[in-house]
């Protein structure tokens, strides 16, 4: 593992290390400017927690990275490859954005599992139909992943018959099934009952421990402090403060961050 990584880094020293780079990202909805120039870089293996009050633009920023929202302007580079954008910010090359999206797995606040498919079908859907993995292979992998998130034996259950925590864990298995180079978590525990939050956080903690690159929009400050190696505080569409979690949480500089932290504590 180490030698392979080393060999790869010799070939492409810079781009290999960088997973996601966002430059001067702007996004407006009509007259409302939600993002006012955000810069962010995540190296491979980074766990970046994005925190901020409601309406600060943190979800919008995450959704701009895989173009679920069309940025108004800026630059997005995924794994060293810049996404070609038209003047209006929409992806210029649909094929390119579809290919890049398969490397970025998103986990949504509302899970967004496909309700007409069983858990197993949800997990194999993208590998089989988008990535063209042989079905038997995809099923075998899906079973492993469902087992890993604690859902062994529930393969044939439909999402509507499961708790929110189970659905979110299945959604994480779906994300892992595409073998993503980075994962985007959009408030993965915000729609869950308090007693179900822990089981989802445990799964995410496991992913962080194995060195997955993750961008994590979250309201769980304790969790962010624990798993992230970089914390970004957004305020009204700008990065107000960022740094290692010990700095951001332990020694906040800006008044707004101090206020925010005391209000959520």
């Amino acid at each position, binding site marked *: 593992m180490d030698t392979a990584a080393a060999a790869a880094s010799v070939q492409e020293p810079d781009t290999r290390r960088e997973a996601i780079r966002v430059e001067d990202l702007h996004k407006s909805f009509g007259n409302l400017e939600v993002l006012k120039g955000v810069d962010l870089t995540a190296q491979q293996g980074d766990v970046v927690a994005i925190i901020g009050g409601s309406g600060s633009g943190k979800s919008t920023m995450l959704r701009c990275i895989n173009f679920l929202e069309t940025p108004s302007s800026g630059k997005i580079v995924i794994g060293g490859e810049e996404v070609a954008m038209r003047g209006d910010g929409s992806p210029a090359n649909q094929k390119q954005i*579809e290919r890049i999206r398969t490397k970025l797995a998103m986990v949504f606040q509302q899970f967004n599992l496909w309700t007409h498919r069983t858990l197993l079908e949800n997990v194999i859907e993208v590998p089989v139909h988008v990535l063209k993995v042989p079905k038997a292979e995809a099923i075998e992998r899906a079973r492993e992943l469902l087992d890993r998130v604690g859902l062994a034996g529930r393969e044939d259950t439909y999402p509507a018959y499961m708790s929110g925590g189970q659905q979110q864990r299945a959604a994480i298995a779906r994300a892992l099934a595409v073998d993503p180079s980075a994962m985007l978590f959009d408030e993965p525990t915000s729609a869950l009952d308090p007693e179900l939050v822990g089981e989802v956080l445990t799964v995410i903690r496991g992913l962080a421990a194995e060195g997955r690159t993750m961008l994590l929009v979250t309201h769980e400050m304790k969790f962010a402090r624990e798993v992230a190696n970089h914390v970004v505080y957004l305020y009204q569409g700008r990065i107000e403060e960022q740094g290692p979690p010990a700095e951001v949480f332990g020694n906040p500089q800006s008044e707004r961050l101090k206020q925010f932290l005391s209000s959520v504590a």
Partner: protein
Amino acid sequence: MTGLFEILGLGASAELLSLEGWGGNLLRGLANSLQIAFGAFGLGLVIGLFGAYGKLYGGKVTRDLLAIYTTVIRAVPELVLILILYYVGSDIINKISEALGGGRVEINGVAAGIWVLGVVQGAYATEVLRGAIKAVPVGQIEAAKSYGMPTLMIMRRVTIPAMMSFAVPGLANLWLIATKDTALLAVVGFNELTLETRQAASSTRAYFTFFLAAGFLYLMVTLCSGAVFARVEKWARRGQPSLKGGTA
């Protein structure tokens, strides 16, 4: 069986309805009606799917044209539409044929019936499917997008299966309307069930017998359709808890 009809005093009716006699004509009429209903319903679904997507995602011109189509078709009585579309359609085909140096063309009744009713069904199907597509939770489509699915695959793998449970009741209605609208084609002289019935009745003066028989055949079609659509709906609603509670 014949004995029973004799006892009930229905011997004459049974004879009239025998398969070698007028009864066979009625069944042939029913077969024609069903053929047209199937074709028209199918054509309507195809038009409806394109219409619904056009109305939801099309450009301004597409949306305006579709709005005119659905408004006009749904505003004009079907009988009038059938007369217009049938005569206009056959007129245009003949004009084209003459311009190409050919003679008058014999219009195939089944094809004409499917075309005319299909265009009518398409307008209603457009609205049924548009509503169903809009009812699909947007998150399911976003999830598909975020995993790199191309647009057509999203339509095939996510949107259409997910909207089916919302569309099936409306489509079942449309199917039943299609089976009965075939009767309107009698006015353009197409040998479907109603026209066959009228011919049988006026030839034999046994109006009651034949129209009752025709009514019975239409009822059978409806009952069988109901059973089929109940199964289709159960399939389309897979994964959704029953509204009555408990497990589906």
